[in-house]
């Protein structure tokens, strides 16, 4: 975990390709030993930012410090960073050992020590005995391990990973996620991880920077992002979120009331700013926080709205419902845990949705 001090420090980083600006005003710090993720849809600039950290790309403006040293004008081969490429970039003309030992030829160490370190790296990524295999004899997962070992053997201060798991199938990917997390704890160095998979980012990271259109939308812990998204974009990107549009009718520090038209007047916690009366806003409620019942719940600590089941999907451990509300364009998504053999409610049946008054969030529109 991070010890709180800034190990990597980005300030006002900007990147332009010709007239196209792909990164704007990127300013944040990454702590030493942190597992830090850059999360966003493709084209949001996350890979470009990673390449700026590695030195493959140079920023058009702004400063980058790694371990207190300015990286301005420092080329990739002189930086204390190593990268795991999305394509793994395994050298096809070298075998596994030669691939892993590639970077050691550039540091002054004895041949014996280099061999020793390659063997340790092979063990670290569980590739013992495959050292003499050729690159084209490796499976996707093994290539990924070689790429990891090749980067780690150079003992970088920062390991940069560019969607390293995206080419693997689901089961292998989940396995590798756990291994990667364990590996990061073992080696204890800072990981900067690029991904478009929000679940992966939540699973792995100490902190996540959610990016869109070349900007950081929100930087927070996984829990913070999920429970306190500060904007509609983040709320929609991380997990599933129900968003009910409305206008602010009353607001104070603890609660903002929204007039959501035919759905009624609903309240939620304000995020950061207290919105003016009449401003457009969204009430955001997670699907798993909503209960579904046949009759109107009488609990005054809960908001309840009436609707009609439009879609139901039985997933075994839970049931996903789409419930249509009068006056609402998009149906609400509700996840019901299958704890006590719940009956799947038929399509078209009238149901009540309710949630605790304290769980809703009010996000600016």
């Amino acid at each position: 975990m991070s010890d709180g001090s800034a190990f990597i420090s980005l300030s006002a980083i900007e990147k332009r390709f010709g007239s196209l600006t792909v990164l704007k005003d990127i300013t944040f710090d990454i702590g030493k030993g942190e597992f830090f993720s850059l999360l966003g849809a493709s084209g949001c600039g996350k890979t470009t930012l990673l390449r700026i950290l590695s030195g493959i790309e140079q920023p058009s403006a702004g400063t980058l410090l790694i371990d207190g040293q300015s990286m301005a004008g420092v080329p990739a081969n002189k930086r204390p960073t190593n990268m795991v490429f999305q394509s793994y970039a395994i050298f096809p003309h070298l075998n596994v050992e030669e691939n892993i030992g590639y970077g050691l030829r550039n540091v002054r160490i004895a041949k014996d020590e280099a061999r020793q370190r390659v063997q340790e790296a092979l063990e670290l990524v569980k590739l013992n005995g495959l050292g003499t295999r050729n690159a084209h004899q490796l499976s996707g997962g093994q290539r990924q391990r070689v790429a990891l070992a090749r980067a780690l053997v150079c003992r970088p201060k920062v390991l940069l990973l560019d969607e390293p798991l995206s080419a693997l199938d689901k089961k292998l990917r989940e396995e590798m996620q756990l291994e990667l997390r364990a590996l990061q704890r073992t080696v204890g160095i800072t990981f900067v991880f690029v991904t478009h998979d929000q679940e992966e980012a939540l699973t792995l990271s100490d902190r996540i920077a959610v990016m869109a259109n070349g900007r950081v939308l929100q930087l927070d812990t996984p829990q913070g992002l999920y429970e306190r998204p500060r904007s509609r974009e983040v709320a929609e990107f991380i997990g599933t979120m129900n968003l009910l549009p409305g206008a602010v009718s009353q607001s104070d520090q603890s609660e903002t009331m929204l007039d959501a038209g035919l759905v009624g007047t609903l309240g939620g916690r304000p995020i950061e700013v207290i919105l003016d009366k009449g401003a457009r806003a969204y009430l955001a409620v997670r699907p798993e926080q909503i209960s579904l019942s046949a009759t109107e719940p009488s609990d005054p600590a809960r908001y309840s709205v009436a609707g009609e089941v439009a879609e139901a999907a039985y997933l075994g451990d839970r049931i996903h419902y789409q419930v249509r509300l009068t006056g609402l364009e998009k149906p609400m998504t509700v996840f019901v845990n299958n704890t006590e053999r719940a009956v799947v409610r038929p399509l078209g049946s009238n149901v009540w949705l309710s949630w605790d008054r304290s769980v809703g969030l009010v996000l600016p529109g």
Partner: protein
Amino acid sequence: MWKRLDGLWIYAVAFIAFIYGPVLLMPLFSLNDSTFATFPLAGFTLRHYGEMFQNQSMMAAVLNSLKIAVIVSLLSTALAVPASLALTRYKLPGGGPIVGFMMLPLVIPSIVIAVALLVIILKFLGIQLSLWTVAAGHILICIPFSMTVLMARLEGFDPSLEEASRDLGCSGWTTFWRVTFPLAMPGVISSLLLGFIISFDEFVIAFFLTGTENTLPVYLYSQLRFPNKLPGTLALGTLILCGSAILVIIAEVIRKRGVQSGNPGDI
């Protein structure tokens, strides 16, 4: 197999006979015990091969052509490697037109190039015609071939391999020798062979630009007037045929091996 003896099959056989028949007549007549290349065959002999090796001026021409071909293939490849790298790795301003100009010698008739070079060499540069001027002319026409082969190879591999090398601490120069060049090797070998073969049998430029010494094609042309020289020529042709067949087979084997292990796309 025999059931497929239909029109298409006959066509295929006729096609192959049409292409290779004339070529295969050459080794046949080179072993024929007669001065004239005519049927019926007079008997088996190896004496034309003996005569060929004793023909000093022919051997000199062969040696000249070999020397020029080796120099041309090495130099045109050495010049084409950095040019292809620049054109495939960087977005150069005017990169498209540059490639176009580089490829131009492919479509200019060699007689035009030959005359133009002759004028430049004699009138503007005032250099004596020699085997060196022939080699220079051949390099000019070989570069587009070398570049075509090399650019195809360099475009075919993942740019992140070179980035990975830089990231692992190599300078641009070491990256070239440890990653780019080994991976471009199949292209480099193709380029060397192509340059060698083009230079070895090029006639027009050699005819115009050579001084007192002859290259093989020029020498052979000059000998066609003497019927008694024909069998020696046939013997030489047979040896060249065998040599180039071996070269092409080697090149193909290397290329196949390159496809197997040198292709980073096959994840």
